[in-house]
């Protein structure tokens, strides 16, 4: 797969899961790898990069059982970017569907 494409698609998945609330790593990676064949390790790198780009921030919160978990929160900039990626993606999917047929 085109590396740039994969990167964009995974960013979109992760950011989209954060639009309706903060989540911790396992929640995010488990939900995504349930739907597609992707190493959770890759997703942690995506999260790391999004954090570096200031598209998400992280904070620690105590869990009921065991040590504190790292939660991811979508920044305003991240929300803008998610919107942009999403419309890029939908436009792309529509265009491809129009050519290859449903």
């Amino acid at each position, binding site marked *: 797969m085109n590396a*740039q494409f994969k990167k*964009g698609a995974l*960013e979109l998945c992760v950011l989209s899961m954060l639009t309706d609330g903060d989540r*911790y790593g396992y929640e995010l990676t*488990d939900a995504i790898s349930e739907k597609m064949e992707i190493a959770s*390790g890759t997703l*942690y790198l995506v999260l*790391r990069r999004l954090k570096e780009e200031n598209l998400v921030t992280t904070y620690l919160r105590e869990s009921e059982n065991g040590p504190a978990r790292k939660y991811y929160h979508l920044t305003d900039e991240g929300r803008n970017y998610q919107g*942009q990626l999403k419309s890029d993606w939908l436009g792309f999917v529509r265009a491809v569907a129009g050519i290859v047929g449903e």
Partner: protein
Amino acid sequence: MNRQEYMDALSKALESFGSDIKDEIISDYEEHFNDGLANGKTEEQIIAELGSIEDLVRELKDLKDDNTSDNGRSFENFEKEAKKTFDDFSKAFASFIGSMAAGVTNGAQKFTDSASGYASNMADSLSGSFGKAAESFGKAADAFADKSVQFAKDVAESYKNNRNESTCERKCDAEKGEDNSADAEDIVMSVSYSDVNEISVETDCADIIVEPSEDGCVHFDCDYDATPSQKLAYRIEYGCEDGKAYAYIKKKSSVSSFFKKITGPEAIYVKLPGSVDKVKLASLSGDVELSDVTLDKRADISTMSGDVILNNLSVRDIYASTMSGDVDAVNLTSGIAELKTMSGDVEIDGNVINVNTQSTSGDVKAKIAGARKVKTVSVSGDVNAVLEGIDGYSATVDTKSGDINLYFGAESHEDVKRGSYTFGTGACEVTATSVSGDVVVEA
């Protein structure tokens, strides 16, 4: 493999990425194990889920490369790049020395083959001169290496200086709540400021194009026809305080679009009124171009791979340096002009009192009128100094393997030895040296 073994292997594999990255990934993975186990998975299942350590390392490396590629090149990487350029250059120089040595060996071989009667005498004299040549070559190589390291440092330093001051100015503005930065939505810049005497412009890939202003105001214009994700990726800042106006175009992050890298604005257009007497212009990969501008004080220009192009510039002092770009000055009028490049060419013509032009692997060509001091230096390129409007010069000339030709009026001295030569009054002091290139001085 169990959890312990997997985490040990991971820790080892991440060693080279620095403790920040390593610690974060280790803690993410530990957390993932805890949650996975709590959800009823086995260690083996979780290991399979996380994926192979080799793949992770490869992806991390790709990310790193991505960040240092041309578009994502940050100012922080400047010194690193400078060092790399120097290393590449050193390698080229080493191979150049190597080829010289090979030439010597060939000569020796030919000589042995000829086996004539006075062979032994010749052998002595030859080995003597080869020995000396090799020695002076070694010295030249050392001196060159020192110089190049210094040069790379100077360029990096001048870059940082330009940058540090600007950062300070920006901070002042932010504190006073006068930050005029463009929003992500508003990336088209078109501003003007009056009563300005100093400007600073910094870009990563945009060209900086400077022309005279007709209304007494400084103008910064940047038309960026960008897609929304491009707008998110680039940041334009500008402002003015205490007579200093600044504009910066920087890549904010390495956010990607689906299929292609994001490119930034192509150029920033600057209009300069006569009130401005000092400019600082810095770009990483963009060109810096000044046309028909007059500055009473100084111009500092630095680029990494962009060219420096000066047309009809009049300035008291100018310092321009680039790593791999060319420096091209046409009709420059200046008191002091210092123009340096590492791997590009330098070409200047104009009216300059004290000119210092240097390249390491490129050619240097200076055509100067009314100069008192002229320095043209290269290592592997040719050097050519043409002096006009003077009644004599004293030249220090040197090259290891090129020719030296000196001309003064009708006098012509071709293929002369290294050393000092005086013509006419000797008033203009000329230094013209190369290591492997030709040296020509004309007046």
